[in-house]
Each structure stands twice: as C-alpha cells, then as structure tokens.
C-alpha cells in the first residue's frame, strides 16, 4: 500500500535531513579529539570496508552480478600503491618513489584496469557462471602475491609508506599538527582522510545508483533481454559496473593498506570476499547507505568482540580454550543474518529502517488525528 505522507511535509523533511547531516558531520570531525586509538582504528577499518562495500553493492545489488573478486582487486590496488610510493633507496622491495597521493590515485586506476582486464569474462558470461569464475581470481591473485615477493613482500608482507597530502605526512611525528589542543597523530589524520574518502565514495555511489546509468544497470539485473530491447548495451553496462566497482575496491584497498600499515597476501582471501558479500546483503542489496551500515556491522563487530571479550559471555581471546573466538562468533552472526535477510527482509538493515520509519509516521498520524478529534469535540 502506498500512501502519500502528509504529516511531515517536504520542507520539514529537508530541514530534518540537513540538521542530521550537519550533526553527523560535526560528530565525525570532533570524534578523533576524544576517542582513543582502539575506537579510531575500528573506525578506520569500517571506513575502508564501507568504501569497498559501496562498490560491491553496485555490482551485486544494482547490476545483479555475483562477484568474489573484491579481495583480488583490493590486493592489486594495495600492492600497486606500496610499490609506487615506496622509496627505492630505503626498501628491500620494488619501489618507484612517487608522491604517495599520486601513487594512491594510480592504484585506484590500476584496480579499475584489473576490472577492465577481467571484463571480457564479465561480458561473455552470464549469471551464476560469472560469479563462480570470479572465485578463481581470489586464488590466482593470492598465488601471484605469494610468489611475486619483490612487489608484495611475500608471506610476511611489506610495510606501507604513509600517505602524504599537501606536504603533511599522515604518520606519527614528534611535531604533530595540533587541533584544539589535541596533537593529531597517524590515526587521527587517517580518520579525516577516511571520512573524506567515504563522502566522495558515498556521493559517487549514489550518483551511479540513482541515475540513468543505475537504472540501466538495474534493467540488466532484472532481465538482460528486456534491457537490450530497451536500448541498453548489456555488455558495456556490465563492463562499466565491473570497472566502477573495481575502482571502489581499489580505494578500499589503499585505505586498508594505510590503516593496517602492512600488506600481506594472506589477508586478501576468500573469507574477505564472503565478508564483503555479507556486508552488502545485511545492509540491503543495492543501497549505498545499507552498504555502509553492513560494513560497520560486519567489519566492526569482530574488533569490538575481541576488545571486550573478557566482559562478554562465550567469547574468548585468540588462542584460549573453552569459548568462541571473536572471528568465529562474527561468522556465525554474519551467516545467520544473511539467511534471515534473504528469507525475510531482502532489503536488509535499510529495509528494517524503512519499516520502522513508516510504523513511526503511522503512529504519529494516528495520535494527531486523535488529538485533533479531541480538540474539535
């Protein structure tokens, strides 16, 4: 049933929305001044996951193409960034000594190029065949990284050179920039960078989804034949979705590398691919906001469970016996949530939020009607 919402008019909604956005903006800017390192690190991890999840939701949710390739693309971008930015004099590995900002941009384009390289596959294959084909990219990518030690650092990985923007190095330093009396070290600086990247990714993601392009992608998802008869070039639409999603994955890979401070091939495994799928499904397929919510949940939860394991029942520290490890607990929850979402609420957390809001407006309207009746009588 669709009803026209009369209780809250459009201008009021816009005002509420503006105020909420401003509040969130202020909170994000002020947060690093008060939060300790653990919370900042959690935030950084969630941020890089959210950027990647926005990319994946365009591919899986909007275009309807199952993909496991995200870790492969993230690894490609992370290694490209490290290789381009590392100083050839100081490192035992390959290094070109480019400015880190340029290296980061090139790394994102490198991920896009990887997506483009995989796209002949994407445009030739349809449906589920493509999903299983991308499974192989994860394994092949890991194999390349493990063996091409000059670039990847091999099993133990290699340290990531810090980002530097406008002459400001985003690393710990003895003379840090000071904001409102708080020295801004590595985590605080990376927090602001991640916030900026998320804003860009959010706007870009929404523009892709809610535009002519997004509608053509959704048409491909619903029926390739129907899309083609309506003038959508199915192959190029799929290729475009792949490249766009790859570049989001690339940005996520660079952020991830900067956050963890080292890249190791082992990280970019099939488990990561499944985590990303869990994020977009739990958040709500095809929704940018949902991807971010899913990322906060799936990427943030293991860190929180780990940190507070001594205060939580059932959860134990890594290596301890007699309970569940934080990572196992997270995969239980993630799996159960995927199943529940697919069975009962395919729009995920976003769907739940919408339901909640419509329930609230309905209740609000009912009380207003009752009060107006009361005053009239």
């Amino acid at each position, binding site marked *: 049933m669709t009803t026209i919402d009369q209780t809250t008019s459009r201008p009021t909604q816009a005002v509420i929305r503006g105020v909420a956005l401003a509040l969130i903006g202020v909170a994000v800017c002020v947060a690093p001044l008060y939060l300790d390192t653990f919370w900042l690190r959690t935030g950084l991890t969630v941020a890089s996951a959210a950027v990647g999840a926005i990319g994946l939701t365009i591919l*899986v949710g909007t275009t*309807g*193409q*199952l993909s496991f390739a995200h870790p492969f693309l993230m690894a490609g971008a992370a290694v490209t960034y490290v290789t381009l930015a590392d100083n050839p004099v100081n490192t035992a590995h390959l290094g070109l000594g480019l400015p880190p900002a340029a290296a980061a941009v090139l790394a994102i384009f490198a991920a896009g190029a990887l997506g483009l390289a995989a796209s*002949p*596959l994407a445009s*030739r*294959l*349809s*449906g*589920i*065949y493509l*999903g*299983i*084909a991308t*499974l*192989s990219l994860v*394994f*092949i990518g890991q*194999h*390349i990284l*493990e*063996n*091409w030690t000059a670039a990847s650092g091999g099993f133990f990985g290699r340290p990531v050179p810090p980002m530097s923007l406008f002459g400001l190095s985003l690393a710990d330093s003895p003379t840090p920039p000071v904001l409102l009396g708080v020295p801004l070290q590595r985590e605080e600086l990376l927090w602001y960078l991640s916030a900026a990247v998320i804003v860009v990714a959010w706007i870009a993601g929404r523009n892709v989804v809610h535009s002519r392009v997004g509608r053509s992608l959704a048409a491909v998802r619903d029926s*390739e*034949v129907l899309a*083609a*008869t309506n003038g959508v070039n199915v192959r190029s639409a799929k290729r475009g979705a792949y490249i766009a999603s790859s570049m989001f994955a690339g940005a996520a890979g660079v952020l991830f590398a900067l956050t963890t401070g080292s890249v190791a091939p082992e990280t970019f495994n*099939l488990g990561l691919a*499944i985590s990303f*799928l*869990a994020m977009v*499904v739990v958040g709500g397929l095809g929704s940018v906001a949902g991807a971010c919510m899913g990322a906060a949940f799936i990427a943030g939860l293991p860190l929180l469970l780990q940190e507070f394991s001594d205060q939580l029942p059932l959860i134990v520290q890594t290596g301890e016996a007699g309970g*569940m490890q934080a990572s*196992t607990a997270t*995969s*239980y929850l*993630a*799996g*159960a*949530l*995927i*199943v529940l*979402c*697919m*069975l009962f609420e*395919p729009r995920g957390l976003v769907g739940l939020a919408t339901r909640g809001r419509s329930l609230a407006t309905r209740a609000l309207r009912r009380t207003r009607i009752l009060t107006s009746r009361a005053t009239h009588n």
Partner: protein
Amino acid sequence: MSHLTSLLLNGLSTGAVYALIALGLVLIYKCSQVVSFTHGTLVLLGAYLVGTMDDASGFIVALLIAVPVAAGFAGSINLTLLSRRAGAPPVSLAILTIGIDLVVLSVLTQQLGSNVLNISHPWGETRWDLGVASMSANRGIALLMVAAVAVSLYLIFTRSPWGLAMRAVSEDTEAAALMGLSRTTITTLSWATAGALACIAGMFMAGPPTPGVTTTVAVVALRAFPALIIGGLDSLRGAIVGGLLIGVAESLAAGYQHELQFMGSGFAEIVPFLLMLGVLVARPSGLFGSREMTRV
C-alpha cells in the same frame, strides 16, 4: 614414462572425488537452479561425521549412519530454507547458500579446532600395484565408486519414476506442477542425494594420501567448482569429465613442478582455477552445458 602414467592415474583418482562432489552440485542445479556454495562444507560435514563415529562403532557402521544423516541434513536445508524462496533469482539463492555455509562451517570449525580427526578406512594405507604404476587403494576405490555412481544415476534418470519426475521438473517446473509433481519433494530428494554424495566424497578425501579430517577439506572441496563449470552447470556427464580433468591437471602440475618452477611454488593448487578461466573464455557454458539461447 611410468612417472607420467602414475601421475595420470593419481590425477584420475583425485579427480574422481571432485567428480562426486560436482555430480551433487549438478543434481541440485538441474532441479532447483541453485548453485550451492554450502557444498564444500557438506563434504567436510560428511568426513567429520564418519570420523567422529568410527572410533566407537567401526568404519562400516559409521558410514552407514553418516551417509543418511548427511543426506537428511542437506535435504532439510532445502526443505526449511531454500524451497521457501523457490523461483528467486539464482544470485539471491546462491547468496543464501553462502549464509548457510558460514553458519555450518563455523559450527564445524568450532568442533574441530586445529585437530586432525582420523578415519580408519578398512583399506588403510594399502597401495594397489598396477604394474606400470601404483595408486593408493583409497583413491582407487573412489574411482570405482564414481563409475558405480555414474551408472546408477544414469539408470535412475532414464528408468526410474523419480528420474523422470526430476527431468520433468528441471525441464519445466510449472508444467510439472500441473502434472502433479511437487517441486519441493523433487528438489529435496536431489539435495539429499547430493548430500550423500558429498559425504562419500568427504570420506575419500580425508583418507590416504592426504591426512585426516581438517577444516582444509572444505577448502579443497571448493575445487569441485572448476570441475562443475568446466563440465557445464547442468550436465552430469560434464561433472564427471570436469572432475577427472581437474584432477589430472592438478596432478600433472604437481608432478612436473620442477619444470613449472617459473610459475611459482604451489602452482598446482591454482591450476583448476586457471583451467576454468581458460575453458570459460572459449566456451561460456562449459564443455557440455546447455547454451542459453536468447535472440534480441
């Protein structure tokens, strides 16, 4: 020459195990258009069930209990979860099976930890000497098993009423429903059969020459996906050919790893996936898969 022969033979026998898993995946796909990402874990579950019970009750009894239990579990996954969403887009159904896989795999990981569970196969470490080469009895029996399964599936499909019903459902679900065939029953039966095959595959996979039941069984079982895709998602013959092909390719890459040193160490593990990509570029529906025909 004997090196090559023994590599081929071992490849075929490893491939037989992949083929068993892939056969189950094809059965499921044909009936319900679901690609089951739960299957790697079902293989582990089967191996785990046999491994936990055979100390107390002996191998034969353990297997006789484990196979129906695994079949029942797979069937109930379909009955309680997947059949509720029958007809949903294949990608949603695949994601649903990923969710189920995460839960079941977490339970098994929690149970197994980093332990190795040994299965005491009655044939043990015996090796069959075939003159030119030798192979482990475990894998040899797996090869014979695949032949037996292939023959019986062929007979079931062509001769039995269930096979006919299954073909009818996979051909046209609505028409089959109008003829009084329950889609849920047929798909649940195919899931159960696939679960039984996965259990048997797990039992072989956790035997010599590989160590016992560890969580890596679920990862190795993922190599059945290349087998499935190479053969074609909906072709039983393709699953067998694909499985054997993957097994042989992997065995050759491992056997000639010195000659293949330039491809990096551990190359054999990714050969199945490279082979899959190669086949897909040439034939997008696999070797035997039915091609999607759309003209616009």
